[in-house]
């Protein structure tokens, strides 16, 4: 499934519906569905907040094969920004040194098995892969 969404945070409601449709059609269990929602929300909000330039939409693609889920977001006509290289938030810091932001990419890296970045012809593409166990489907 692939669809374009407006480059604005308010598009999240529509994005969650899109994810729900995919989860239902692909018969994915609740735990994996939770991870997909989280990864898509965190990646999309990161794109909206940090990518510079860009068209008025961001493309989200969700695919499933027998043992893998593929979550892909594409942003067109943007400057390069490799979120996968952003230094991970230090979750061992004491409370007074913790920041409210910066948690999203740490979460995505923790819940998927692979997170990759490509940039070509001013198109930025981030792909997250989650391996499925037999009990997940």
């Amino acid at each position: 499934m692939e669809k374009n969404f407006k480059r604005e945070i308010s598009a999240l409601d529509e994005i969650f519906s899109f994810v729900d449709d995919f989860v239902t059609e692909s018969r994915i269990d609740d735990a994996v569905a939770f991870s997909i929602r989280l990864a898509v929300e965190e990646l999309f909000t990161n794109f909206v907040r940090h990518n510079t330039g860009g068209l008025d939409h961001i493309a989200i693609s969700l695919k499933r094969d027998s043992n893998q889920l593929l979550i892909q977001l594409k942003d067109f006509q943007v400057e390069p920004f490799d979120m996968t290289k952003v230094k991970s938030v230090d979750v061992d810091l004491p409370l007074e040194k913790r920041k409210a932001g910066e948690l999203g990419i740490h979460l995505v890296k923790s819940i998927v098995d692979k997170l990759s970045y490509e940039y070509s012809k001013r198109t930025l593409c981030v792909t997250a892969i989650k391996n499925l166990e037999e009990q997940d489907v």
Partner: protein
Amino acid sequence: MEKLIISEEKLNGKVPVALITLKGSIETTNAATLEEAIERVINDRCYQIVVDLGGVNYISSAGWGIFISEIKRVRRNGGDIKLAKMNPAVREVFEILEFHNILKPYSSKEDALRDFMSGVEKGPETKRK
């Protein structure tokens, strides 16, 4: 995603404790409403806060970020925030973020309230290197 429903209740025992009950999902578009609820309680000079997450099925980084910023303010005033009844999926994210180093989870709101009422439990110490 389910809408976020918030209810607040002030319990006037030996120390005033606020019980904030949440239902639904906490994500980027509605995290501000959680922030407003906690701030209403704090502005009412109530710094002992129990958040009942029993009806919450999803919290993204936007929601966890609210807890990070509000707990600092609450503890500066000698209080604490206690999270109760996280479901397994929400609890897993809580663990990934190592929040157990800064917020003690409770299996029920009654346990969390009891700790405040008894004044024994002060929440976990923050981890230091």
